[in-house]
């Protein structure tokens, strides 16, 4: 940890704790114990004080006891031999007349994570299960689960399982729920706790006594129960009816999930339940807590997959508040697009129009894209708005509008004439490569309808030398050839210049190859070229696919009220862990660099870098030092990361890296190709320097993906592995933000 002189601190604390004068003064003694815990929280290793802390546990002061227990639980696994000393005290406390002390001791004893603990805790747990205080029983029931997790592979103790099933009838509601939880843990391999008819009905009858957390958990357990008959089913549903309108969102949603699940054979019941829960769901969308709002919005989206009309009249609830964070605004816009109908289209569009001038370019672009989606149904009104936006002459807006036009023409050919007229009249052109590509596509595809098309294209061909993006160059080639096919007289000359430049002077192989391909095609004759180059100009059938369709509820009810809707995908703990390894693009392409063959550079997979690595910033490096070291050292590790550089703003990137303690020294601005960044960090006594590179012709594999090269002094392969895995996670986290827009 970044703490220097931690030994000094520990030594001083030990001196204080063993000082008889301090021990005599209860308040001072407690203060020192608090100090130890504080250091522990900050990450300082104070495990050396274990002996002194064990001594401090023999006290009547409950606060002090709690603090010491907290300490012991943290370090018991590091010092198993010393922890055994504490067990005697704890076992004595387990027989204390005060139930609070009994419970406290039992809970903490079960939290010790060290081998051989079972033999000490088994007897107190069994005694605790029969304790007359419900507090102790609660602790003991979960203690059974903890005991099992200490030795996961041992045989299940039948007597304990039976005892737990019997305790489901306990008068204390928390004990009942804890029993369910413990049984679930213990019987995990056998499919979890069994909910048969008597248990299910017992739980249903106890629902009213439970607190809201227990209610939502029991409702989740009840998903396992299948009623025998319709009569029983409706009895259950009417018992649960009141919970649909619970003031706790988590109970209402859990009830809804159970309703949807139980009534899967009765669509009318499901629809009725959805209708009734729409009010609590909408209320969560307007909750004071932003996070709750977001969760509510995600679930509204899910419900809308089956019942698109359910929230139609409430569309105003999804208007964005100006102070809301952008992740909520994005969701709300997605929902608004779905809710548009003949009556509200004017108001929704007006609302979306006001987001287009938002300070955040991402949000503005998303709003423009949303208008584009609506334009597939209500093209006229939307085109007016989009055309008006072009008048603002803002780069990011113009670019987004042009991209929206491209998509619109593709999905909805009837708007082509209007779009072409607007594009023809538009004077300024987008500046970023995405926008340029969209404009060029429009020019090439519909050049016959845009009168000024050749002149606009000529501008691009003249500025070819300063164009950096190869994607734009390729799009330009295609567009020019297509335009040549429909307006040969105006285009011939510039196409010739373009091909000449691309074949003779262009250094990017892909662009050159594309130019050669067109050149040879044209040599075969115009008709031949036309056959190859021209494809369909639009695909209206696609809009049917993207349009709203009612899905059956069974499509999504299994992920309802789980993390899935928030993550935007079906998220399963198992698959989430392995998915990274399955992607072929993530495969680490390790090169054993000359001179370093003897060191072990092989990574079996990026995911097995499980080892903990701590990075730290340390004193800053000057540019000169960095440069000198970079030139002196040899590259130890080079890896293709398998994804492009994050498109986030430079300061976002810098701040994000800084959070994981990686310092950015310098990087190339904006869309410059090749894009480079120099970063460094320190790990256990080693300094790591790294270069991120994209789009350099010399480096293999860097066209589409980032390449990282690492240098280090002194060498520590373990640290490099950790560093690369941290870096990768950070950059990957930054990436999806853009792709979502």
């Amino acid at each position: 940890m970044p703490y220097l002189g931690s030994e000094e601190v520990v030594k001083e604390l030990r001196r204080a704790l063993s000082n008889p004068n301090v021990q005599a003064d209860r308040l001072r003694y407690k203060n020192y114990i608090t100090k130890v815990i504080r250091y522990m929280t900050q990450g300082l290793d104070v495990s050396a004080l274990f002996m002194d802390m064990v001594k401090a546990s023999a006290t009547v002061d409950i606060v002090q006891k709690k603090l010491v227990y907290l300490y012991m639980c943290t370090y018991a696994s590091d010092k198993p031999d010393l922890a055994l000393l504490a067990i005697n005290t704890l076992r004595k406390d387990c027989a204390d007349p005060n139930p609070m002390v009994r419970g406290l001791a039992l809970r903490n004893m079960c939290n010790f994570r060290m081998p051989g603990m079972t033999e000490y805790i088994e007897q107190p747990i069994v005694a605790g299960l029969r304790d007359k205080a419900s507090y102790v029983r609660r602790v003991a029931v979960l203690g059974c689960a903890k005991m099992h997790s200490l030795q996961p592979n041992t045989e299940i103790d039948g007597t304990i399982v039976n005892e737990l099933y019997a305790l489901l009838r306990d008068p204390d509601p928390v004990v009942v729920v804890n029993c369910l939880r413990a049984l679930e843990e213990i019987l995990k391999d056998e499919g979890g706790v069994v909910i048969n008819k008597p248990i299910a009905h017992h739980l249903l009858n106890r629902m009213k006594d439970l607190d809201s957390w227990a209610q939502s958990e029991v409702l989740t357990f009840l998903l396992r129960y299948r009623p025998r008959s319709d009569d029983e089913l409706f009895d259950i549903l009417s018992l649960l009816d009141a919970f649909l309108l619970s003031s706790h969102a988590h109970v209402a949603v859990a009830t809804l999930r159970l309703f949807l699940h139980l009534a899967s054979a009765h669509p009318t019941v499901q629809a009725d339940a959805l209708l009734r829960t729409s009010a609590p769901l909408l209320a969560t969308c307007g909750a004071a807590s932003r996070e709750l709002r977001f969760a509510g919005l995600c679930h509204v989206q899910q419900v809308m997959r089956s019942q698109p009309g359910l929230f139609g009249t409430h569309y105003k609830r999804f208007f964005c508040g100006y102070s809301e964070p952008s992740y909520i605004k994005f969701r709300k816009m997605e929902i608004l697009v779905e809710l548009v109908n003949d009556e509200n289209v004017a108001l929704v569009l007006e609302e979306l129009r006001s987001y287009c001038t938002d300070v955040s370019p991402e949000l503005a672009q998303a709003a423009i894209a949303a208008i584009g989606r609506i334009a597939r149904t209500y093209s006229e009104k939307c085109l007016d708005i989009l055309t008006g936006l072009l008048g603002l002459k803002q780069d990011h807006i113009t670019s987004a509008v042009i991209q929206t036009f491209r998509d619109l023409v593709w999905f909805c050919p009837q708007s082509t004439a209007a779009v072409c007229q607007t594009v023809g009249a538009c004077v300024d052109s987008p500046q970023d490569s995405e926008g340029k590509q969209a404009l060029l596509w429009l020019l090439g595809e519909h050049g016959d309808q845009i009168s000024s098309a050749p002149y606009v294209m000529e501008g691009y061909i003249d500025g070819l030398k300063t164009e950096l993006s190869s994607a734009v160059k390729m799009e330009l080639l295609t567009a020019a050839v297509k335009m040549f096919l429909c307006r040969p007289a105006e285009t011939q000359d510039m196409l010739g210049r373009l091909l000449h430049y691309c074949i003779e002077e262009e250094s990017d192989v892909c662009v050159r190859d594309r130019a050669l391909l067109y050149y040879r095609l044209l040599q075969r004759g115009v008709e031949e070229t036309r056959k190859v180059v021209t494809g369909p100009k639009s695909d209206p059938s696609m809009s049917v696919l993207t349009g709203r369709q009612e899905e059956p509820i069974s499509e999504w009810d299994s992920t309802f009220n789980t993390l899935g809707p928030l993550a935007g995908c079906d998220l399963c703990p198992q698959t989430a862990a392995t998915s990274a390894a399955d992607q072929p693009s993530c495969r680490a392409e390790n090169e054993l660099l000359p001179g370093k063959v003897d060191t072990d550079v092989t990574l079996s997979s990026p995911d097995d870098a499980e080892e903990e690595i701590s990075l730290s910033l340390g004193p800053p490096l000057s540019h000169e030092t960095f440069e000198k070291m970079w030139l002196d050292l040899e590259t130890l590790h080079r890896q293709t990361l398998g994804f492009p550089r994050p498109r986030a703003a430079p300061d976002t990137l810098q701040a994000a890296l800084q959070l994981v303690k990686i310092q950015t020294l310098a990087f190339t601005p904006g869309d410059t190709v090749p894009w480079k960044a120099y970063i460094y960090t320190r790990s256990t006594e080693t300094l790591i320097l790294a270069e991120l590179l994209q789009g350099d012709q010399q480096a293999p594999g860097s066209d589409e993906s980032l390449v990282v090269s690492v240098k280090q002094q002194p060498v520590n392969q373990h640290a490099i592995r950790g560093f690369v895995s941290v870096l990768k996670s950070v950059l990957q986290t930054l990436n999806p933000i853009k792709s979502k827009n």
Partner: protein
Amino acid sequence: MISQIFILSSKGDHLIYKDCILTTGLLVALFCLCLYLLILLQSHKGLHFIHVRQGGLYWVASTKTNPSPFTIIEFLNRLAALTKDYCGSLSEKSVRMNFALIYELLDEMVDFGYIQTTSTDILKNFIQTEAVSSKPFSLFDLSNVGLFGAETQQSKVAPSVAASRPIMSSRGEQNEIFVDVIERLSVVIGSKGVLMKADIQGEIRIKCFLPTCSEMRIGLNEELSIGKSQLKGYSSAVRVDECRFHQAVKLDEFDTFRILKVCPSQGEQTVMQYQLCDELPCAPPFQLFPSVEKDYVNRVLIFLKLRCDLPPKSTALNVSITVPVPKGSTSMSQELSSPDQTAELQPKNKALLWEIPRFPGGAQLSALFKVDVPGLSSASLLEVGPVSMSFELPKQTCTGLQIRFLRLSPTQTGLSQRWVRYVTHSDSYTIRI
């Protein structure tokens, strides 16, 4: 099931860290990153992190299973609320000072990753550590409390929360109970002054310092009607679309007398939530009459006339008006009608911010801003707007919901002080130009 619970400062330092089940080797730093990007849910190696932001701190839970997000989020919110109840206020400093107390709380609330209890009634039996208050409680903190409509002493009021002091403090006997009616207003006004959207989210919140609770009766307006169907003949009725109650509230007298019966437990809790959509019983509190013109070659004139339509006796506080200005605005000169108002240009947000600390009802204020924009085109004028406002309306509810009386059951001995406060916040108040 929760694997770990953290409380992180805004810089990403660990203030509290509790490992509920056996987990090792974690990159917590990675989690900080997702905070930065405001992604609610972040997954890393099969461990999902969910966070909530409260009081400038991040409250984080991680889980390996796939639980209900609502449960986790509400639990974290509840944890934050409880921390506030016990420590008095929520800040990095108070959490740092009371970390032992918070560990104690967490220990009782969560066992082996399962939520045990979050009720203050139960917790108070187990919590032994005493809160360390960052500043001693003084009566001046209460000076902004209006007791049954009494005039407030200070203009700077932030009455959304009851007194900020620990509930378990042994310092003096405080037989006090606060009942706050808090409404959040979200309004969109169209370019011609037409009300396009109006939503009110309201809640009645109790903060109770009584050590032993007795039944309390809260009387609401008798003419309160709920739902769209119950239209009454005379327009004086106070109406809400729907309302939901805390499960401890007894409603047997609600239907006839509009009385809520509740046994409040110590600490803060919401007894009733209600909402009213698409309609405001009164005029919207502010009307704006803007005019935007191009002056000289490179200058935009923005003339704003703002009228407060509140009743003459009430006042809006901390009014701030944000007007988006064209990109590239460099400087601004202003003409404001009184010296306590301020205005500044924020080039980073492309906006100008006009702040009015105190705005009496019925008054009308105007301001003239001259913004210099190099390279101004006529299209740039389109970038001005929509205007957004934020404000507080103390002693004011937009629905008209009032508390008629607040009665503790007669068995209660000793004098107890009851405070009722009303406040309306602007959740989002947007006026299009």
